[in-house]
């Protein structure tokens, strides 16, 4: 197809032709085009369908405020829904499809909704679809859901990568139009660190869309030169294709840079987009203004667009929207479009000027005091109907109509701290109000300064003022000459012409009628109006329509526009890809991995790993021939109990606690006593929260007079450390205690089983006989002269030790232990076997340490010393936590040894109905004990200590199963503890 609507001039590179397709049809455009400008150049006005009525639509704008021309860009896994054709840079091979239509854009079955529009008024769905009740999910909603939505996701993983970054500056200038460029120049020349960001791929803002001159040269040329000077400054960073999405607290701005969206695919290694977190000492909003339409009957026809956009297409993109066009305006800026188009040789049939006063344009049919009252041409504008000042109506054939109702300063970012913009009567629009983000000011059109010269001047002044705050002196350079026309506008929101529909929010199909209905039903508060009619809730967030809506509501209620007020402006300024907000934290990189010292060895053995927080731990190590995990785990457990087993326990938190008050400090943070612990000994400690619930547990060893090593659970390593710092800095600041984590400094292995000592004795240099190194002994030893630590503690109930070496030697140590362990048939066991043995021994772990349990619940009530003050001691004495019939930790065995238990099953008395009144508690942890040859479990049972020996049922209603069980002591294995002392 030829570019029949391409006209002369423009900022496109005619030396290169780009091929692209829209709905499968091939077209051509040039570098510098957007998808929308290229389609218009090819005579394509119809680009989308509206949300509710599926009305045929063309672009309303030439920028990021676009509500109509939304397409699915790209194909396959890169399919990108709801992309605004007006900002999508054209590239060779671009593929786009229209959306929200079936079977085709030109013929859309759901356009039937438009015929039925009288039924589908604002909020009609709140009043019907209620009978019968079950029909909502079954019938009505599925139909509505299928019809709803705009574009679609590919349902495949996004193949592109996204990045994040952090930038710091003295001044961030948001928008590279005349005000922004002038501000950046002033700040840059003063040596300040400046970031100049603009969502466009070309600096200059409106200057690229106008024929105006700045400093005697075409505005676009001046802008290019200013940008060139700025890019030459080392202290200035120009960021194009970069949208500042929001102003957050204390000068933090979010910005999305579209690094590769203008390319077919991102270059190797490059992200598609980058989310920048910008720390700015000062900020200047120079984001310009957005034109608004005037509502009239059928004002949504393809070919009807904002007058400024029509000018942009002509001046910047060298495109005429139609062969013959007209302009409908209530302000002088609209007239500028007429003269520019005419100068470009476009046939301007008429200028319909809602204002009766003012001069007439020379050489153009300029109708004063006239309105456009209707437009015809379903798939593309064919004619408009004009109502002349006298009331006479006339239908004029045109294929394009530019509408200007005035310009709204882009106050969004200045309002992101919930500041309410204030009404400016002179320009009939809202400008930034008080209470915006501290350190942010506005300049140019964003501040309501609408002339080019005003923008240049205010940009420079605002930059100087901002730098002044920072003590940076900037000198006022000369402001180049430019037009300085005052704003001439007579408010006009909609044309009242009887019954037809006049669109305010074209995407959501909100019309003047809907506003009137909302008023009739007393949804008159601006928030109620928005929520009831969905005005401003479309992908453009009402950038063009909101002010119309509230102005019309103001007219209905008799309130002024400022009294009516605006809804809240929220980030992001324009929609942001989820991928950009996530950055690199996806898939396996969602969170970093933490690998244990034995990881490499375990990998070689074909170990199965399990995520424990960010750690990967060995879950079990299958041997050849083992087809089910239970075989491996049973073997690991039995071999350990029979001879000796080795397990990497490095992940347990280790905290080095030193200082002359270290012992007293431990007495405060543990509910039991540690100051009395002898050097060279360790003790099990129980840590409570201040509310008396159990926080964490572990063994702590006294390595010297003023030196302790605490171990925490893997899960709580970080929170316990934080808590200890809190206690020492905030609660007891005079205590002489120093803390440092050594979790990763030491590789630590548990060596457990009857032959544990014999194995270790082969490895360590010192005598570790029971006499020399008794139960609960702890101390420094050596392995071949290498410093190491040995703790005689047991989690399994076996004779057991934990041995630690500096982490770099951990790999060698496990290999050594395995090697030396051959004669004992030593096994290495994983977290599953660890769990089996701790349950057999009745030790509490994660499932019991659930933050909802007291020491009493765990059968450890006696550990809470009342003789000293410790965190949680007092509140653990509250009556509700000392109910004699409260939960107690018990052991559970199936009466039939072949029966299975399930953790999470609840206790019920024999014959009791499965209702909450009969709920006895639940099974916290379940394992299969190869030692006992049956499933066993721990559980919290009401008055459990009084029910030992009782038979009950363990019921799992989720699976419809239940098992008769015997309540037993939680210490299934060697309750007297002879083995671990052996």
């Amino acid at each position, binding site marked *: 197809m030829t570019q029949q609507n391409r006209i002369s001039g423009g900022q496109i590179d005619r030396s290169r032709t780009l091929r692209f397709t829209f709905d499968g049809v091939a077209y051509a455009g040039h570098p510098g085009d957007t998808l929308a400008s290229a389609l218009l150049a090819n005579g394509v006005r119809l680009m989308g369908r509206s949300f509710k009525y599926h009305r045929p639509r063309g672009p309303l704008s030439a920028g990021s405020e676009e509500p109509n021309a939304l397409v699915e860009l790209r194909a396959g896994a890169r399919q990108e829904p709801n992309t605004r054709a007006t900002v999508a840079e054209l590239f060779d091979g671009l593929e786009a499809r229209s959306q929200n239509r079936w079977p085709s854009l030109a013929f859309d079955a759901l356009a039937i909704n438009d015929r039925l529009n009288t039924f589908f008024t604002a909020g009609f769905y709140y009043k019907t679809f209620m009978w019968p009740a079950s029909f909502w999910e079954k019938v009505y909603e599925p139909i509505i859901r299928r019809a709803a939505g705009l574009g679609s996701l590919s349902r495949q993983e996004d193949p592109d990568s996204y990045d994040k970054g952090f*930038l710091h500056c003295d001044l961030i200038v948001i928008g590279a139009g005349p005000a922004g460029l002038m501000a950046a120049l002033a700040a840059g020349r003063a040596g300040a660190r400046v970031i100049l960001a603009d969502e466009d791929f070309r600096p200059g803002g409106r200057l690229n869309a106008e024929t105006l001159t700045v400093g005697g040269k075409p505005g676009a040329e001046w802008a290019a030169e200013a940008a060139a000077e700025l890019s030459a400054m080392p202290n200035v960073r120009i960021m194009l294709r970069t949208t500042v999405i929001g102003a957050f607290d204390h000068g933090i701005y979010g910005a999305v840079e579209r690094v590769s969206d203008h390319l077919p695919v991102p270059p190797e*290694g490059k992200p598609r987009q980058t989310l920048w977190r910008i720390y700015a000492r000062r900020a200047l909003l120079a984001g310009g203004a957005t034109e608004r339409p005037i509502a009239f009957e059928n004002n949504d026809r393809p070919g009807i667009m904002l007058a400024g956009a029509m000018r942009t297409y002509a001046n910047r993109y060298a495109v005429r929207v139609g062969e013959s066009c007209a302009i409908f305006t209530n302000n002088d800026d609209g007239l500028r479009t007429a003269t520019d188009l005419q100068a470009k040789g476009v046939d301007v049939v008429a200028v319909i000027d809602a204002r009766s006063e003012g001069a007439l344009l020379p050489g153009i049919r300029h109708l004063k005091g006239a309105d456009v009252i209707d437009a015809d041409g379903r798939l593309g504008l064919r004619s408009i109907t004009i109502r002349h000042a006298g009331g006479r109506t006339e239908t004029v054939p045109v294929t394009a109509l530019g509408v200007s109702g005035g310009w709204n300063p882009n106050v969004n970012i200045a309002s992101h701290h919930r500041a309410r913009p204030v009404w400016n009567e002179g320009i009939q629009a809202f400008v930034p109000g008080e209470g915006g983000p501290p350190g942010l000011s506005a300049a140019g059109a964003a501040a309501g300064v609408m002339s080019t010269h005003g923008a240049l001047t205010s940009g420079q002044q605002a930059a100087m003022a901002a730098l002044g705050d920072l003590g940076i002196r900037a000198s006022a350079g000369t402001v180049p000459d430019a037009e300085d026309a005052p704003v001439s506008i007579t408010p006009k929101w909609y044309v009242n012409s009887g019954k037809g529909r006049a669109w305010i929010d074209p995407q959501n199909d909100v019309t003047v009628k809907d506003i009137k209905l909302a008023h009739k039903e007393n949804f008159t508060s601006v928030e109620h109006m928005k929520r009831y009619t969905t005005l401003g809730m479309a992908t453009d967030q009402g950038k063009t329509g909101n002010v119309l809506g509230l102005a019309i509501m103001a007219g209905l209620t008799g309130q002024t526009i400022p009294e009516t007020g605006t809804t809240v402006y929220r980030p992001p300024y324009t929609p942001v890809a989820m991928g950009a907000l996530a950055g690199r934290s996806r898939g396996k990189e969602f969170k970093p*991995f933490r690998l244990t010292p034995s990881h490499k060895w375990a990998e070689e053995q074909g170990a199965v790993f399990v995520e424990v927080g960010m750690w990967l731990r060995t879950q079990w190590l299958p041997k050849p021939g083992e087809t089910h995990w239970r075989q491996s785990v049973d073997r690991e457990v039995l071999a350990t109990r029979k001879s000796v087993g080795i397990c990497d326990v490095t992940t347990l938190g280790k905290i080095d606690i030193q200082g002359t008050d270290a012992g007293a400090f431990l007495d405060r943070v543990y509910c039991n006593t540690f100051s009395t612990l002898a050097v060279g000994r360790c003790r099990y400690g129980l840590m409570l929260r201040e509310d008396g619930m159990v926080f964490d547990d572990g063994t702590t060893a006294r390595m010297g007079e003023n030196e302790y090593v605490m171990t925490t659970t893997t899960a709580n390593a970080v929170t316990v450390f934080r808590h200890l710092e809190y206690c020492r800095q905030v609660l007891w600041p005079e205590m002489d205690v120093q803390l440092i984590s050594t979790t990763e400094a030491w590789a630590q292995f548990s060596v457990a089983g009857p032959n544990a000592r014999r194995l270790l004795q082969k490895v360590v240099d010192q005598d570790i006989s029971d006499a020399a190194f008794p139960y609960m002994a702890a101390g420094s030893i050596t392995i071949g002269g290498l410093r190491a630590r040995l703790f005689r503690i047991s989690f399994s109930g076996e004779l057991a030790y934990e041995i630690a070496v500096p982490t770099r030697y951990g790999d060698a140590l496990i290999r050594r232990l395995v090697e030396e362990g051959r004669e004992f048939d030593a096994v290495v066991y994983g977290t599953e076997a660890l769990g089996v043995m701790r349950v057999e021994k009745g030790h509490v772990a994660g499932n019991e340490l659930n933050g909802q349990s007291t020491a009493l619940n765990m059968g450890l009530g006696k550990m809470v010393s009342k003789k000293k003050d410790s965190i949680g001691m007092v509140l653990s004495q509250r009556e509700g936590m000392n109910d004699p019939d409260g939960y107690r930790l018990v052991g559970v065995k199936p009466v039939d040894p072949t029966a299975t238990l399930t953790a999470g099953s609840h206790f019920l008395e024999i014959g009791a109905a499965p209702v909450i009144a009969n709920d006895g508690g639940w099974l916290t942890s379940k394992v299969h004990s190869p030692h006992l040859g049956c499933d066993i479990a721990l559980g919290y049972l009401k008055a459990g200590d009084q029910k030992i020996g009782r038979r009950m049922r363990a019921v799992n209603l989720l699976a419809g199963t239940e098992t008769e069980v015997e309540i037993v002591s939680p210490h299934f294995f060697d309750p007297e503890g002879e083995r671990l002392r052996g």
Partner: protein
Amino acid sequence: MAEPLHALTALGHAAPKSLAIGPVAISERFDVALASLAIRNGRDGDVAAAAGKAGLPLPDPARFQAGTPFSAFWVAPGMWFVEAAFETHEDIEAALKPIFAGAASITEQTDAWVRFDLGAPDLQPLFERLSNVDFARSPDGFATRTVIEHIGCYLIRHGKGAVTLYGPRSSAASLLHALEVTARSLL
């Protein structure tokens, strides 16, 4: 006495890893011993004196200071990380304790961390994508804790083209991955 155990780097090799991605050189360091040194309450004077005698620098907050045999960087009020050559000071804790004789708490930290030294003509483009540190405005000898792709690290800026990173040893692979991917995105 049993055979000595052989050591493995944080990345799981016998020898430290070095790689270059365009202008960025990343080298794992395996030859530095590290210990924390924290002043016991009220012993500031004793610690300062002992440190001075031993030629051990105790730099100001957020600073690194080189020395021989000991270098150090500040990590918390009254606390520093002390560096020394691993070859001569493998048991750095044993080496430091007598110097401070109970005036400071000393704890070995060598293997709690993986160390990467980074070099490039200018590391700003790399670090503005990794960390919120204002790298460009940081002075040489700046030392701080920072977060890189969810990983808490210590960053020491020796110059705009020379940085030392200490990251948690268990996350060495993830940290290196983050450095590599970012360096590649700059090519």
